[in-house]
């Protein structure tokens, strides 16, 4: 069953660029406010150091040196995976149903990876050295440090996605030029450099290979690779070990990614009256994918729990027992289970499905995944293999400084979409064309 939006006209497509939604100003103010709050707190951190957070040395220090900043970093990288999942589905697997939301998802990838990068900046003790210490050391450290692998792959994912966007936007701008604002002409000229229609087929093939490269790299080697390896490769913490971490992290990423796309797509549909352009079946389909990835996530949590409590080595047993005795862990799991229940019910009885409900479910899933990731980091640090340190128990509750960063980064993503949606179409022109007819000529 494929969704057919080819009847939609170009006016509708460029509606965000040509008209102002009444929600635009509200969203803008809210985004700037969120960013402002965060900047206020971040300035304090830059002045006084990370002592303004609730982080501390683990072990004899009684704290955790990694907390919400790292949890949120992983969370944003996870959300970023939506872009490639959607684009791969459309380009590589021909799932045209999702084509209307493919570009939004790509844009979400750029925004989310930017936030992930901001979290690295916020997290380190010496942000002033982030480039001057990291870049010159890269040729030597890339052979050993999982953090450098992480930085390398995130850079690659960002650059590949941005290249994908820059290449595919040319087709759209060329054909929609007269509907785009004149004052941005220099920008469009730059984006269209060297363009002629003969490139269309070549670029189509190039971006196919781009999508291929990303689908191999991002899920398998980034969120199912170097990111879990940051933890699983270490000899220090009992709760982090194991080959299951790769698949587990990936399942969370995919769940968060689809949730993010649902929210963004619903926002645009609502703000610009895009019922025709992003019809309900798109959300219905996305909800089923959310259900599938969420199920994988729960299943992999089960793997970790059962192998950690049946007859596990002492330190792993202890770490797992602590994990399942933590109420907030069950809040996170419960949120995902609740989401699963709704999605399952709606899959069986489609009248139960509404877009506002799936958006609410997506928000809850995002909360749950952020909590789970932060717990993973924090509880890992609170239960090291060196169990003698249990005598100095650590308590971690994120401080206002840390919490404000979540607000700030969400604000940045919202701001990003508000600005970009005024400059380029956030839905591909191909989506409203019959079987890529223009290109195949």
């Amino acid at each position, binding site marked *: 069953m494929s969704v057919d939006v080819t009847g939609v006209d170009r006016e509708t497509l460029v509606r965000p660029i040509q008209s102002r939604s009444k929600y635009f100003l509200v969203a803008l103010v809210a985004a700037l406010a969120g960013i402002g709050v965060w900047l206020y707190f971040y300035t304090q951190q*830059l*002045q006084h150091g990370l002592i303004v957070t609730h982080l501390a040395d683990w072990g004899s220090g009684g704290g955790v040196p990694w907390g919400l900043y790292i949890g949120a970093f992983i969370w944003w990288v996870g959300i970023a995976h939506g872009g490639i999942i959607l684009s791969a589905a459309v380009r590589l697997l021909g799932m045209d149903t999702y084509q209307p939301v493919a570009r939004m998802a790509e844009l979400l990838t750029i925004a989310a990876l930017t936030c992930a*990068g901001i979290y690295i*900046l916020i997290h380190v003790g*010496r*942000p*002033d*050295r*982030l*480039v*001057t210490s990291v*870049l010159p050391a890269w040729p*030597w450290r*890339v*052979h*050993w*440090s*999982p953090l*450098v*692998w992480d930085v*390398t*792959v995130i*850079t*690659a994912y*960002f*650059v*590949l996605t*941005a*290249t994908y966007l*820059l*290449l595919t936007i040319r087709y759209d701008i060329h054909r929609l030029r007269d509907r785009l604002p004149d004052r941005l002409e220099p920008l469009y000229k730059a984006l269209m*450099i*060297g363009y002629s229609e*003969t*490139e269309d*087929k*070549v*670029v189509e*093939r*190039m971006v196919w*290979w*781009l999508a*291929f*490269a*990303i689908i*191999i*790299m991002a899920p398998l*080697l980034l969120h199912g*690779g*170097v990111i879990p390896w940051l933890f699983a490769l270490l000899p220090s913490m009992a709760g982090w070990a194991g080959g299951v971490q790769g698949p587990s992290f990936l399942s969370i990423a995919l769940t968060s990614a689809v949730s993010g796309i649902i929210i963004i797509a619903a926002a645009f549909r609502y703000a610009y009256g895009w019922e025709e352009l992003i019809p309900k079946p798109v959300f219905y389909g996305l909800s089923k994918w959310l259900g599938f990835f969420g199920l994988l996530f729960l299943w992999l949590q089960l793997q970790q729990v059962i192998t950690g409590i049946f007859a596990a080595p002492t330190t792993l047993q202890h770490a797992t027992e602590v994990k399942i005795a933590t109420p907030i862990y069950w809040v996170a799991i419960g949120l995902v289970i609740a989401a699963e229940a709704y999605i399952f019910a709606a899959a069986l009885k489609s009248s139960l499905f509404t877009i506002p409900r799936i958006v609410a479910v997506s928000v809850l899933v995002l909360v749950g995944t952020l909590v789970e990731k932060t717990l993973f980091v924090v509880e890992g640090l609170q239960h090291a293999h060196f169990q003698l340190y249990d005598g100095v128990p650590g308590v971690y509750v994120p401080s206002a400084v840390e919490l404000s960063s979540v607000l700030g980064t969400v604000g940045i993503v919202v701001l990003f979409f508000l600005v970009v949606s005024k400059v380029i179409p956030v839905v591909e022109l191909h989506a409203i064309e019959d079987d890529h007819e223009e290109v195949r000529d």
Partner: protein
Amino acid sequence: MLPLASAPYTLPFVGPGTYLIFGIVLAPIYVMLAAWYLGKPSDSKSALLGVTYLAGLTTALWGGLFVATMVIKFAFF
């Protein structure tokens, strides 16, 4: 044999990351670049555009980050 750890005390230059990054993680990119230049339809002008985007974006990303860190440096450190 992977020279994963040995005395004397500095880590050898080659490590697990050498194979991981240059052999596995970047492999899809090597394949993609090859496909941009070879096969049909391909066009060296478009391929060059793509490569320029890759290089330019990487520079812009790290350049922008560098500027941000320098601002932080002069303001706070």
